[in-house]
């Protein structure tokens, strides 16, 4: 550990290297120079580590993992539903319903769907009552009121061609850019 002429040590400077320089460091040429030296050195080692990391084949690696998870079987639940076109019973996975919801949201310019979950809330076969969780972020120029109306309508439009339903409850969570909840509301519609 080096002691600088001003009495501080390299370690003192290192402890706050990721933060803006304090008043002393701004005024003290020794600390200022030491901070610069340590930052340069740190940046150099970081770059060196990146460049000296042996290459791997990301695509082959991903394929290997995806192959393994595929063999683990699907994680989705399967639901007994009634087909609106034929009136016949059929089985649909959560992912099929989710894909339809995602497709409906894809064209929205005010709402981005971050996460959705769907489940039947009744014990009947076919299921007629559904609960959908929608986590969304909204465009800056939009408002919670507009988003609420739009989400319910998008969900309804997405699932109606796939299932006959009596009741749809949407638990809507509006999130910030980092996925943290900033507002939540429950919306409900009966057919």
């Amino acid at each position, binding site marked *: *550990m080096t002691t600088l002429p001003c009495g501080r040590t*390299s*370690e003192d400077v*290192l*402890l706050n*290297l*990721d933060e803006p320089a304090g008043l002393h460091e701004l005024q003290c040429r020794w600390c200022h120079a030491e901070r*610069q*030296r*340590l930052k*340069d*050195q*740190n*940046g*150099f*080692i*970081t*770059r*060196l*580590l*990146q*460049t*000296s*990391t*042996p290459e*791997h084949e*990301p*695509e082959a*690696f*991903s394929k*290997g*993992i*995806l192959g*393994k*998870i*595929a063999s*683990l079987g*699907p*994680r*989705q639940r399967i639901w007994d539903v009634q087909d609106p076109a034929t009136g016949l019973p059929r089985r649909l996975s*959560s*992912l099929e319903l*989710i894909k339809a919801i*995602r497709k409906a949201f894809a064209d929205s310019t005010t709402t*981005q*769907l*971050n*996460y*959705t*979950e769907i489940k039947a809330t009744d014990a009947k076969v076919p299921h007629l009552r559904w609960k959908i969780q929608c*986590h969304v*972020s909204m465009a800056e120029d939009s408002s919670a009121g507009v988003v609420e109306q739009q989400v319910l309508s998008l969900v309804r439009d997405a699932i109606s061609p796939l299932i006959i339903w009596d009741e749809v409850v949407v638990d809507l969570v509006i*999130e910030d*850019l*980092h*996925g*943290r909840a900033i507002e939540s509301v429950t919306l409900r519609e009966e057919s």
Partner: protein
Amino acid sequence: MEPTRLAVLVGRSMEGDPEAFGELVTVMTPGLRQYCKTFFSSWHDAEDATQDAWIRAWQSLGSLRERAAFKTWLYRMARNICLDRIRQRANDQQTVDDEVLEQTPVPDRELPENVAVQRGEVADAWQIINGLPSALRQTFVLVALQGMSYKEAALVTNVSESTVRGRLARARNAISEAVS
């Protein structure tokens, strides 16, 4: 990766979409692999642990409470896998794989004038890191290489933020002494 894109991919993965999960794997594996390397002497072991971490992540996605915390959740899982493997192989040596280092290219950039590193020493970057105690090594890679905040690194390594700060300073000091 932008936070919004990450939020969407994590959300879709939680919904059971393997395509979205595959994109996460592709984008995040290089960093995760480097972190796993801090536990092992060989890249092969690091890759095995990385693969296990992804498979366990897929199986456990339902237990992820906050999508925004996906990265720290994943790295924490990887850390536990690495520690389990090390415990299983108690005689694992933290020695550097010289063969791999010999094959690493020397960066063609000019060195800053004030960094006293000779060209011959350049290939020893991972050797320097591997020479650090495990806790310092992990902290340095998480913050300096993976760009995690002190808070995130603290969550991954299960210590306080001030401990991370101290460890990082000690790691940087040791590196500084090693290259000067």
